[in-house]
């Protein structure tokens, strides 16, 4: 599994991270590794400790225990060097409401650890699609525009590592697509490493190559998305007027069916995606009416299964 990745450069190493707030254990042994060019999915239910972990990585919070190394350097001892090479959005992007977008970026640029010229700021504004609105005050921006500006400040100093905490929250479908394409571009074309925390499991499934799932402050599982999800297998739901007969024929003809669930009008099971058309044709041939076929998101199912196992 990890043979190829051993050769890739380790960008982020988080080991045994622990953090308590007034007796409450927000992080209780979080560990994961991120390699160069990864689009790394950071998953967990609400309150799992995702934001806390990311805040620790960005030195907003000091962990009680554990070790964080980024670019091969200890974060606590090389804060300036490390943070100079990271761009991030934690929770929602907040800027100075009374300043224009351009002024906000100038302020961030001044303390980004690198020289960022005015023309580079203009370029990044154009890149995120905010040209023409850079002089407007931040308070006049829509949610989508604020998100774009957040991405602009994360990218303008050309960092190697980008940390995005739920970047598509509140965006319209086009906005979501734009962000997804941007992340892919950053990773594939510009060779950047992206850590992406999201509740949009479909997004993670589509763009992340590695991921970790955490729950109740602990890492549950980490690895390649494709290997974890075995994406040739997927969950499918058939709607039928005769589920019993459907099941009987299905189990007789196909041996690699798993997780079979039957209700009054639906049959749900895990199967190799290549077999779906064949199953459909077989059932129709047996005069079983098929009123609907739904491909369930594998990751969603996997995620819920992992979380429930932890319970």
């Amino acid at each position, binding site marked *: 599994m990890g043979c190829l990745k051993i050769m890739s450069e380790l960008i982020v190493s988080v080991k045994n991270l622990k953090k308590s707030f007034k007796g409450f254990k927000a992080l209780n042994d979080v560990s994961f590794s991120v390699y160069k060019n990864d689009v790394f999915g950071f998953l967990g239910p609400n309150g799992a400790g995702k934001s806390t972990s990311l805040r620790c990585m960005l030195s907003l919070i000091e962990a009680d225990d554990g070790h964080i190394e980024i670019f091969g350097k200890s974060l606590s001892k090389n*804060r300036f*060097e490390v943070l100079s090479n990271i761009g991030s959005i*934690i929770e929602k992007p*907040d*800027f100075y409401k*009374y300043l224009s977008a351009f002024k906000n970026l100038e302020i961030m640029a*001044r*303390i980004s650890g690198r020289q960022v010229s005015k023309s580079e700021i203009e370029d990044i504004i154009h890149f995120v699609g905010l040209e023409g609105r850079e002089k407007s005050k931040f308070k006049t921006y829509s949610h989508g525009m604020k998100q774009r500006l957040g991405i602009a400040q994360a990218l303008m100093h050309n960092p190697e590592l980008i940390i995005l905490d739920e970047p598509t929250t509140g965006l319209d479908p086009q906005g979501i697509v734009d962000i997804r394409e941007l992340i892919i571009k950053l990773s594939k074309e510009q060779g950047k490493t992206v850590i992406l925390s999201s509740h949009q499991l479909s997004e993670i499934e589509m763009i992340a190559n590695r991921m970790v799932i955490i729950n109740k402050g602990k890492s549950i599982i980490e690895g390649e998305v494709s290997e974890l999800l075995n994406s040739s297998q997927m969950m499918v739901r058939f709607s039928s007027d005769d589920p019993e007969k459907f099941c009987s024929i299905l189990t007789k003809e196909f041996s690699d069916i798993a997780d079979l669930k039957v209700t009054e009008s639906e049959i749900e099971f895990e199967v190799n995606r290549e077999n779906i058309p064949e199953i459909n044709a077989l059932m129709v041939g047996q005069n079983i009416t098929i009123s609907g076929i739904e491909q369930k998101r594998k990751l969603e199912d996997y995620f819920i299964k992992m979380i429930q196992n932890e319970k």
Partner: protein
Amino acid sequence: MLLKNTHNELIKILAKPRSYIGFLALTVLIGVILLAMKADGDNFISFVTASFEQTLSFNGLILNGNLIAFIILQMLIIHVPLLVALVTGDLVSGEAAMGTLRMMGTKPISRNSFLLSKFLAGAIYTFFLTVWLAFLSLIVGQFMFGTGDLIVLNSDGLVIIPEYDIMWRYGLAFCLAYLSLLSIATMSICFSVFSDNSIGPIVSTMAVIILFTIIGSLDVSTFDYIQPFLITTHMASWRSLFEIPVPYDAITDSIIILLVHIIGFTLLALWWFNKKDINT
């Protein structure tokens, strides 16, 4: 990085509407006082000399710009600190409330530099507010009322300072006034570090000023021990520059007390800000 972020802080201060409230308030307040003095200043002066006028008469230009400036400084000693706190009390907590503290906290700037740049920007803002106060009270006052000797009523009598002997006193007095205001600014920034909302530090600073002023003015032996160390006790130390002779030792003590407050508040703020988890 300290200077770069100080530049940032000054941009932010200049862009905030509340930063101009102090200048506007001073202009209006001092304008009202100047007009009132123009209209009825002689009656006000008679309060100063009333005790002596049974036996003595005072000749010459008593109501002049130098006296007006003194009266204005006396009146505004409580109010100007509040105008300072309105801006400086918001420097950290305002960012926490807005969420920008989180954004800035991820940048490669040390927390010490980040906070010290706010102290520096607050000090610069306070400086300009003091300069504006000096301009309106002294320069505009002299323009409207002319110059002359300064008659000052202290707790042990009248002091009449010749015109040629005044300006250097005012120069030092405004320096002392600036130091007093700077101590208030550092106190409010320190409170701001402990809070995540905008209003708390400003109200706390106001409350401290009012409470310490009341304690300082009470003639109760219980408070005799702490009165010499209260920040508000020494905020009026500029008045000692208008004594004959000037009590330099006592003024030096006041300067030391104020500097101790400034350094103390700064160190406390730095300590807590470095410890603090940025959860907003």
